[in-house]
């Protein structure tokens, strides 16, 4: 009994001290102080400021951001996001304050005598009735507030989820079929007149201020269509039809990304939405409906021949030529697009030649096999592809 008393009274403060000293930050401070450096607190302050800067640097928005909405639906989603953010921030701060109060109060309230009492086999475990009632009321209150907050979130997200599609339904003037492939997007502009239907890839042009209907399909695995600035996610499930509506109120370029893991190159499956004024959009549609431009010089003619006699023709379409395969992206107006390989690289001559000769080093696992061509044929092919505006 005696030994335990001694160990208890002397041991506890020592133990606390040791435990405190064990935390890395305090070790760091202690070491720096030992070297007579005045820096630690200022340095730590600087570090935390830098960390916070880094933390909030993602909040600027941009061309792929759900909190920088460019359309009515994304606007509603971002409102929901901010509601959740503010409520959760308040809850977080309150919880931390409550935790701090609990720690500080138990320290001050429990006198040293009480702590000694605990150690000497006579713990005072029973609470007074008033104390117990107060605690019960606190817990009940917290549970009630939590349930209310969760219900507010539930109702808010449910109603916003419904409103995303309900007021757009059957209003889209332009209907676009978007098909997910491993790992690119096929984009097909539908029309009641079959001769006006055309296909492109990885780029969707839409008129500003008009709702657009997107019909989503997949041919292989589940993908998910997500252009955060315009709307929420929608999954593309093989064998099922899904529909999503987009409306951009501000002209601009918005980046989208496959949002459901779909295999090796899921990360390199991007698309761009170009919101343009109506007349510009119509001009773009007319240009895309046209057949591919005929080769204008000898090199381009040779390039076309290379295209038609090499493995290219097995997968790609160039309208106006014999190439009519549909397993790869449509290349009729490939030079009018700004990227290649689903947003992986910008459309430049150098990137394009790298892609043709050895696409597997750029996007390992993609379904385009390497094409062995002699360098003159490659140059001619590049001339031809770059002419396909």
């Amino acid at each position, binding site marked *: 009994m005696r030994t335990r008393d001694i160990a208890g009274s002397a041991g506890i403060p020592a133990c606390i001290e040791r435990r405190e000293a064990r935390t890395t930050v305090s070790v760091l401070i202690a070491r720096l102080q030992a070297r007579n450096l005045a820096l630690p607190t200022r340095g730590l302050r600087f570090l935390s400021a830098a960390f916070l800067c880094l933390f909030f640097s993602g909040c600027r928005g941009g061309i792929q951001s759900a909190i920088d909405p460019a359309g009515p639906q994304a606007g509603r989603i971002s409102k929901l996001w901010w509601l959740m953010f503010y409520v959760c921030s308040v809850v977080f701060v309150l919880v931390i304050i409550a935790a701090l109060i609990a720690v500080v109060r138990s320290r001050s309230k429990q006198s040293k005598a009480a702590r000694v009492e605990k150690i000497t086999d006579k713990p005072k475990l029973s609470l007074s009735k008033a104390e117990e009632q107060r605690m019960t009321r606190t817990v009940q209150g917290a549970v009630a507030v939590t349930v209310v907050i969760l219900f507010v979130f539930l109702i808010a997200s449910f109603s916003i989820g419904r409103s995303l599609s309900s007021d757009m339904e059957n209003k889209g003037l332009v209907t676009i079929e978007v098909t997910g492939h491993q790992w690119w997007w096929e984009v097909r502009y539908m029309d009641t007149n079959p001769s006006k239907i055309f296909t492109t890839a990885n780029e969707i042009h839409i008129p500003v201020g008009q709702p657009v209907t997107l019909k989503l399909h997949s041919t292989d695995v589940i993908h998910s269509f997500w252009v955060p600035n315009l709307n929420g996610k929608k999954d593309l499930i093989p064998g099922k039809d899904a529909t999503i509506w987009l409306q951009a109120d501000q002209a601009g370029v918005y980046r989208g990304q496959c949002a459901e893991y779909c295999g090796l190159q899921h990360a390199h499956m991007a698309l761009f939405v170009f919101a343009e004024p109506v007349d510009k959009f119509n001009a773009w549609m007319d240009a895309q409906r046209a057949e591919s431009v005929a080769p204008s010089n000898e090199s381009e003619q040779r390039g076309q021949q290379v295209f038609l006699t090499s493995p290219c023709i097995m*997968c790609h379409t160039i309208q106006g030529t014999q190439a009519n395969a549909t397993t790869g992206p449509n290349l009729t107006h490939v030079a009018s697009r700004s990227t290649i390989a689903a947003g992986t690289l910008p459309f430049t001559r150098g990137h394009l030649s790298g892609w043709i000769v050895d696409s*597997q080093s750029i996007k390992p696992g993609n379904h385009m096999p390497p094409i062995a061509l002699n360098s003159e044929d490659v140059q001619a092919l590049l001339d031809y592809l770059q002419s396909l505006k």
Partner: protein
Amino acid sequence: MKKRFGNLSEETFPLRLSPFAFRFRRRARIIALSLWLVVVIFFVACEREKREFRQAPPSVRVNVIAQSDLQPGSVTPPPPTSNPDEENAVAVNEGKRLFDWYNCTGCHAHGGGAIGPPLMDEKWIYGSDPAQVFSTIVEGRPNGMPSFRQKIPDAQVWELVAYVRSMSGLLRKDVSPTRDDHMNAKKSEQRTEEKQPLSTGASKSSEQSK
């Protein structure tokens, strides 16, 4: 100490370890060894799913094709060629995908045949050997089979060869495809029982129709 550990003298352990440390070290070695064993066993079956990203470019060489069975002297059978893709489930599945993509299904359907001969039966007009199937695809055959020379890269042709042979159950069960991406029209290649190839040559009717 010496007695206890037999011939392990102090030369082996010059640091003069305590019995506990020694026992610990021996145990650690046993654990490390068994871990290695587990790792080795774990990776033994990896070849089955090995993926080749950087395939060989398409062929420019001219494949020699025999148009006639007649030859001087005694019959010399062609050397059997092995197709490494037939040991690889990934390659066979790629072949299955390409079979659709390159529109083989347009004539052969999903193996049952349509305007082209069926591929899931035991009859092989131009031979069932991988090399023979390869040259059927690359060279084409009379009465409709087009030549895919310089259209399909060699590596993909070998994948197609592996898949075509899996359709009549000629491949190992553990590398043959197990399911279709669309509705199943027939038993999966894995569940197809092996059909011993019969070399039939071109049928009389197709000879006459020439």
